[in-house]
């Protein structure tokens, strides 16, 4: 590996650690950002990229360690603080006011004021249009942001960051909602900024983009920096290796067991998207008892939406769901859970756990009726027993089940969510990104549990955006793209190339239309 050219360092993170409730998001990271260059950051979901950037942008404060700006230690108490030092960020989730116009959004908190006559709307619109034109956005600065499609909203966010005249510009997945033509324009603008000496931080999952515009690359895995290099010295293989790590993940060996009869079937599931089109597009699939079906797809492919339709979270969805050959007509979640479906949601904090409750109360939350006498009295002995069993079966490391659920690590929290789902005695288990944001050991535990459950005759559908994971764990692999299943592979015939190809199929066609 060639030496890394030190370059012109503007900002340095020195041994930074960030801890959230239950998760160490970043561990002792050292990172240098260089002027007049595109500093690329890659890593799997939950590797800590966004957290790292949020610390630089002043959204979060590091729990340990320091930030050095041009050699001097600084402390950012707020994003406004960081902005004063010339740091701007485009967040992964858009931070726009939908009820205000594009110009008002771009100049939020630094409105152009004409003395006591208030805001100079005309000047704002003029200036905003100037930035928007630079991006070839084709957006009028007077439009309401909520009336724009998501891709254009992202462009507004980018225009806003550019208008800040920043020295460091952080772009967190800026292209996730952009069309190919828009990406080209964005890259042109990035090139111009680079020439002006701006340090650009670029976060993306799309490796080919990184190779195209990156100068320096930093790879993160499980909150730690695992590789740093100059982009010209490396290839995508190196990136993948650093991302996944040389130590092969501890996947549970698949035990061969006979598959049973069909346990789950979905027919023609469709879900309209708010902005038009279908998030889930006439999706049909069938899974047998004891089978593990991996659903692979990129962000926004509609995997979570499909699972939510099945569990009954979208009353507007259409299509039929069968468990063990019988159709479930009722569309509400309680009935669907009762009939043998269970979902482990993707977003553990928002949808999986009730943070204020204890570990024990979270575990039994979905199955309280089963633990009662006379239908209303929760039997302490039975509840304790069920909790003990779950903690043992899933090897949850809980010092005391009465502690708050947030006192545990992310992996153990995930096991609690799984335990909660299993206590309802499901026949079909839907797992949405079950390994997201948890450490390696917990991942191995979760995978082992999945194989064990399949061996016991459960039908498991799990979604992931991790290739290695889907290849190792699934009996069959369904590739989803743009709300549809583009290909279903048997484990024997699947290769990484074929899967990646199938995953981008739907996207390409719509891009051309758009």
């Amino acid at each position, binding site marked *: 590996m060639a030496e890394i050219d030190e370059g012109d360092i503007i900002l340095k993170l020195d041994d930074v650690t960030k801890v959230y409730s239950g998760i*160490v998001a970043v561990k002792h990271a050292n990172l240098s950002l260089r002027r007049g260059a595109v500093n690329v950051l890659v890593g799997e979901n939950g590797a800590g990229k966004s957290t790292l950037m949020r610390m630089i942008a002043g959204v979060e404060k590091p729990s340990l360690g320091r930030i050095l700006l041009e050699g001097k230690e600084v402390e950012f108490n707020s994003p406004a603080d960081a902005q004063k030092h010339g740091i701007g960020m485009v967040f992964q989730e858009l931070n726009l006011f939908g009820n205000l116009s594009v110009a008002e959004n771009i100049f939020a908190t630094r409105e152009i004021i004409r003395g006591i006559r208030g805001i100079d709307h005309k000047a704002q619109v003029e200036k905003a249009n100037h930035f928007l034109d630079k991006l070839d956005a084709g957006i009028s600065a007077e439009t309401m942001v909520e009336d724009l499609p998501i891709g254009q909203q992202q462009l507004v966010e980018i225009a806003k960051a550019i208008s800040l005249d920043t020295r460091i510009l952080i772009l967190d997945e800026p292209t996730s909602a952009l069309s190919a033509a828009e990406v080209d324009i964005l890259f042109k603008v990035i090139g111009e900024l680079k020439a002006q000496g701006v340090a650009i931080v670029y976060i993306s999952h799309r490796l080919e983009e990184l190779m195209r515009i990156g100068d320096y690359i930093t790879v993160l895995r499980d909150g730690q920096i695992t590789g740093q290099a100059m982009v010209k010295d490396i290839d995508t293989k190196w990136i993948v290796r650093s991302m996944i790590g040389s130590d092969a993940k501890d996947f549970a060996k698949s035990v061969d067991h006979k598959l049973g009869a069909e346990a789950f079937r979905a027919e023609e599931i469709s879900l309209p998207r708010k902005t038009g089109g279908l998030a889930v597009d006439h999706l049909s699939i069938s899974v047998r008892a004891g089978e593990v079906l991996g659903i692979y797809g990129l962000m926004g492919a509609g995997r979570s939406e499909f699972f939510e339709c099945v569990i009954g979270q979208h009353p507007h969805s259409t299509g039929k769901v069968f468990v063990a050959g019988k159709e479930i007509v009722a569309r509400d979640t309680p009935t669907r859970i009762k009939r043998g479906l269970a979902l482990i949601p993707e977003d553990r904090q928002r949808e999986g756990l009730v943070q204020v409750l204890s570990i024990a109360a979270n575990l039994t*939350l979905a199955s309280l009726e089963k633990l009662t006498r006379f239908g209303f009295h929760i039997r302490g002995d039975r509840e304790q027993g069920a909790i003990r069993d779950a903690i043992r079966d899933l090897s949850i490391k809980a010092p005391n089940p009465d502690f708050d659920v947030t006192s545990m*690590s992310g992996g153990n929290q995930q096991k609690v969510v799984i335990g909660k789902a299993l206590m*309802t005695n499901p026949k079909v288990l839907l797992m949405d990104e079950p390994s997201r944001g948890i450490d390696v050991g917990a991942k191995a535990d979760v995978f082992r549990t999945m194989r064990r459950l399949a061996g016991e005759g459960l039908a498991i559908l799990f979604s992931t955006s991790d290739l290695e994971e889907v290849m190792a764990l699934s009996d069959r692999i369904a590739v989803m793209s743009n709300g549809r299943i583009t290909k279903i592979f048997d484990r024997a015939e699947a290769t990484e190339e074929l899967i990646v190809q199938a995953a981008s199929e739907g996207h390409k066609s719509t891009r051309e239309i758009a």
Partner: protein
Amino acid sequence: MTTVTSTQNARAGDGGSLLLTLMKLRTFIALFAVIAFFSVFAPNFLSTANLILMSKHVALNAFLAMGMTFVIITGGIDLSVGSIVGLCGMVAGGLILYGIDLQIGYTMYFNIFEVAAITLLVGIAIGAVNGLLITKLNVAPFIATLGTLYVARGLALLSSGGQTFPNLQGNPDLGTTGFAFLGSGRILGLPVSVWILVIVALAAAYIAKYTPIGRQIFAVGGNERAARMSGIKVDRVKMFVYMFSGFCAAIVGIVISSELMASHPATGNSFELNAIAAAVLGGTSMSGGRGTIGGTIIGAFVIGILSDGLVMMGVSSFWQMVIKGIVIIVAVVVDQAQRRLQQRVALMQLAKKD
């Protein structure tokens, strides 16, 4: 009351530091502080007569505060309880005095048990209206209950044209006597209303701790989306808490009109604010998910003793309001400080571990 002690025991184990423990016990400390203060400075404060009188005052607010606690734990608010008190008082008074005119020349009269039952049903029904507005029509709890606040108060005033229903002794011929028992009766030396409070409080604490609906109330307030995903019937839980709150308010309406032997339509004005104050003082979090019945009862005692004690000391009612406001604010500030401290301790431990 069982709930408050058990959660505190569970938490005391992990915190450790003295400051944290003191902060957790703040409602108890406040209670002892006000009792100690007034026993020294207010003459006759500790006399039996005064203690019983105070407990009657406290009981009224405690009923409302319990209902309010469940509502706040789900992340809502119920502003209508004061008006429900007024309306239910009028319903009880009207039934005793005039019965129900059946429009065919007969009027139906009820004995006081039936009167109480009907009045409670009216309270529950208004709670159900609140619940339906909030769950089915998606009205924000603040607005929905603000609306029913006006409607219920208006109906109370309309029922008598703004007049008081006096002399609720009832008529022995019609079998409507005995109403005074609820308000001024005694069992084993304690007022009947206090006994009712004990029963309802034990029931509420039981619901909170040992029943699925109780657990679900906390889950809905802690993370409504996760609760939905877990198959909890969130709408049903919300209906329950508003109906329970209406039920508690109806009890207060009956007790007050029984104490006074008269129903006045303006009774219960701004009672909702005292109820919210008691719940918050007792550690209920306005953002939902946290709170205990035991804590709320103690909160109600602190507020009740504070206002009665200040009256006995001859402090002007204007100053009383200032003092009550400060106590509430301090309680919430300490609550926030405790949570931050607890979080920081937990995070530092986790950072060190890795």
